[in-house]
């Protein structure tokens, strides 16, 4: 059996899964210290499920703690940002386009030194040893321990980043250092931003991970613990101490993965209807479809890949105007329970329309008797039209697709959806995130520069896939279950025809044998 926990900003949800079966599920408030919230959730969970600790083989945690920290500018530590790329980029220092408040929170310690590579492997400039010595002296003087390092074209050649790290480590052995090449992909400023955000969270990550592990051991759970990352795969909890930024998108990812688990539908549209918005995402092969636009986290441009989510201004608290011809995007939000008519307020909301239509019974139906029949009909039609239109836009290739409804606002859908081939309302949709975390798999990537002239394409793919498979197995995946999910080939510009950067991503089920 496994436990999935979702530590959100307000709620901590948890589930116990036995294979595909949900044994128990619970919701608790997230506590300021994180520990007591998780402990409370675990207590309910184990008691309700009548499960003893020693039956639990592994715990998976999804969390928005790190995203929230960046967005709310809290728990951010001072960072030194070092860029290796001079003489290019003079007058364009790291963090040049960041919002002032977050730049200030990190102390705005910026260093630029010579080095890095060009697209063709030629050095931008020779490394200058004196510059590095100066820099290290200054770090020691300012007592800065958290350091992010980025160099030009480091996804192709990370040597300069590693060299500067080694020099700093020699002088400052306890330094926390993030190298930008670990965040992949071309785009120096975005990759550097990701490394800086990650570094600023390192001390907090240490604290959070320790809290997670403490909460688990408090309740006698000494099994392996994992944390889910952006693409829905797992990292060991200890790995997160070094890479907290890899959790930034895990919230929406887990929600989509949970919807997949609850219905078994690999290809579907997931509509999460809350109080203010409906978030529409797409499942492809059981995983979220990713967006490719530049993603900002707390006002900072990054190169993270996030699920492609369209937020539509329709939720349970949406205002109903013009006799129902307009619903949303304005909303009373979480004040629905005081402002909505059905709850005794005076604002006509989407929830009041559903209550007045008699499709669901909440609150005192006398309070919505005054709503004209035509308004109810028009508003109902408006809401369904909004969802139908937006679902159509998210559907890949206009194919017929099932739609999975989750979230508290799912009751707004009373008439079925034209855009859906079939409509699904899974039980336990309220803890979809925790379920998404619980079913996360082990992922691994490998990347090589290959020449299809020397190595035939099929052989090259096999070679890189084997390397990724080895890594996944070492990380705890069951070897039989490992399969490749993504093969990315990037022809290298201006080089020999056939020179390619080949990246293979594999995933596999967590191997539970021997861990219980």
């Amino acid at each position, binding site marked *: 059996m496994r436990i999935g926990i979702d530590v959100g900003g307000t709620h901590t949800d948890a589930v116990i899964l036995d294979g595909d079966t949900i044994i128990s599920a619970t919701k608790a408030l997230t506590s300021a210290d994180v520990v007591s919230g998780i402990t409370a959730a675990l207590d309910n969970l184990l008691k309700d499920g009548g499960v003893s600790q020693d039956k639990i083989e592994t715990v998976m945690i999804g969390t928005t703690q790190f995203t929230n920290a960046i967005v709310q500018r809290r728990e951010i530590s001072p960072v030194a940002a070092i860029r290796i790329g001079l003489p290019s980029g003079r007058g364009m220092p790291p963090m040049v386009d960041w919002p002032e408040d977050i730049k200030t929170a990190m102390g705005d310690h910026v260093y630029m030194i010579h080095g890095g590579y060009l697209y063709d492997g030629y050095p931008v400039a020779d490394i200058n040893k004196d510059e590095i010595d100066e820099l290290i002296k200054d770090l020691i003087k300012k007592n800065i321990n958290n350091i992010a390092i980025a160099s030009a074209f480091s996804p192709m050649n990370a040597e300069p980043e590693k060299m500067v790290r080694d020099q700093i480590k020699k002088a400052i052995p306890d330094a926390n250092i993030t190298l930008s090449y670990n965040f992949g992909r071309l785009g120096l400023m975005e990759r550097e931003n990701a490394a800086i955000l990650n570094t600023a969270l390192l001390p907090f990550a240490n604290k959070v991970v320790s809290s997670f592990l403490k909460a688990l051991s408090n309740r006698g759970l000494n099994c392996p613990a994992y944390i889910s990352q952006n693409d829905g795969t797992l990292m060991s909890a200890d790995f997160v101490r070094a890479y907290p930024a890899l959790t930034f998108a895990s919230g929406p990812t887990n929600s989509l993965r949970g919807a997949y688990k609850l219905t078994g539908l690999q290809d579907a549209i997931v509509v999460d209807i809350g109080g203010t918005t409906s978030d529409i995402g797409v499942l492809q092969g059981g995983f979220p479809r990713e967006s490719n636009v530049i993603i900002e986290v707390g006002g900072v441009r990054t190169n993270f890949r996030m699920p492609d989510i369209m937020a539509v201004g329709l939720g349970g608290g949406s205002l109903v105007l013009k006799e129902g011809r307009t619903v949303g995007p304005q909303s009373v939000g979480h004040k629905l329970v005081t402002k909505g008519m059905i709850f005794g307020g005076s604002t006509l909301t989407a929830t009041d329309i559903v209550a007045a239509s008699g499709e669901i019974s909440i609150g005192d139906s006398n309070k919505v008797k005054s709503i004209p029949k035509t308004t109810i009909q028009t508003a109902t039609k408006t809401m369904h039209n909004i969802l139908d239109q937006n679902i*159509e836009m998210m559907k890949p290739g206009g194919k017929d697709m099932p739609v999975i409804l989750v979230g508290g606002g799912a009751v707004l859908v009373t008439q079925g959806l034209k855009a859906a081939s079939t409509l699904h309302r899974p039980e336990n949709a309220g803890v979809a995130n925790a379920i998404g975390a619980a079913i996360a798999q082990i992922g691994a990537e490998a990347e090589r520069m290959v020449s299809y002239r020397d190595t035939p394409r099929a052989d090259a793919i096999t070679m890189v896939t084997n390397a990724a498979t080895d890594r996944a197995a070492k990380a705890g995946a069951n070897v039989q279950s490992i399969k490749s999910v993504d093969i990315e080939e990037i022809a290298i510009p201006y080089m020999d025809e056939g020179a390619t950067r080949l990246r293979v991503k594999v995933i596999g089920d967590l191997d539970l044998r021997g861990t219980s």
Partner: protein
Amino acid sequence: MKEVGLEHLDDLALGSVFLATGGGGDPHVPKLIAQEAIKKYGPVRIIHPDTLADDAYVVPVGSVGAPTVSLELLPSIDDAARTLEAFENHTGRKIDAVASFEIGGGNSLIPLVAAAGRNIPVIDGDGMGRALPEAQMMSYAIAGVKPTPAIAYDYAGNTASFDVTTTQVYERHIRAYSMAAGGMVTVAEHPMTGAQLKQSVITGTLGFSIELGKTLRENRGQADTLLKPLQSVFKNSIYGECRMIFTGKVIDKSTRIIGGYDIGEATIETFSGKGDNLTVNIKNEYLLAKLGDSVMVSVPDLITIVDFETGTPINAERLRYGQRVCVFATPCPKFYRTQAALKVVAPRCFGFNFDYIPLD
């Protein structure tokens, strides 16, 4: 409009992506450089071509290279001004004003960086009215302005000077030099007199791009609500009537880098999945839009693809599978419909086997 200040840069960058028709590179980094330069040196004066003295000496300045390279090899704040300095040293002539190669994308901003650093004005106009991939497609070259003397300046301050016969030859040489110098260089070229500029410039595009960007920003939202405001801003411009030709989602996109260009095509399907797909051919820019087999829009008319939900224009390198988009088409400025211009910018010049079909 008298000068460009910090408050205009976001709008200029946004408008320039619309006019870039998919090419021109992401203007984010050039915008940051322009921001830093204006913070340091102050706002930049704008001169309308008509008010320029006939004997003034004007030099267009901008970047040449592969847009993907500039993602890693960042420009420096003084590159553009030092390029002009090197040009003056080489020719022994003082530059009175700078002009832009192309209003589309990052090269709309580089002249501002140069002008700020040298404290000289920038011309309200450019050499393309959009973005196009090669130097001989510039209106300056089409009107007979010689490409050289020209100076190229690399990230490390190395310079090269050029003295060649035609812009076609110059284009080959500068491309090769750019690749040898890290993939991206700043260049001053096609120097001309005020009188020559008046004959060859696409007038007013700098001010127009700022207006266009403002319109896009103020009307941010679902793309089909953008058409009216767009039409009203284009009405008082050198361009024809802007129209919406397609909405749908990208179901395929493939490009390969061949000879330094992103070459390929994108396929867009209607939201309902009914009717013909729209195919857009790409060579750095969006060059052709075909509905089924029939050509709807062809270069040099402008094809712009915007994000359906926000109305933000999307560069070709950022266009991806699954994106929901809206496609706009706008007739190009009259200059580009002349025989002389079509000789170098018609679809056949890009290897397509048919003639330009002007939007009416």
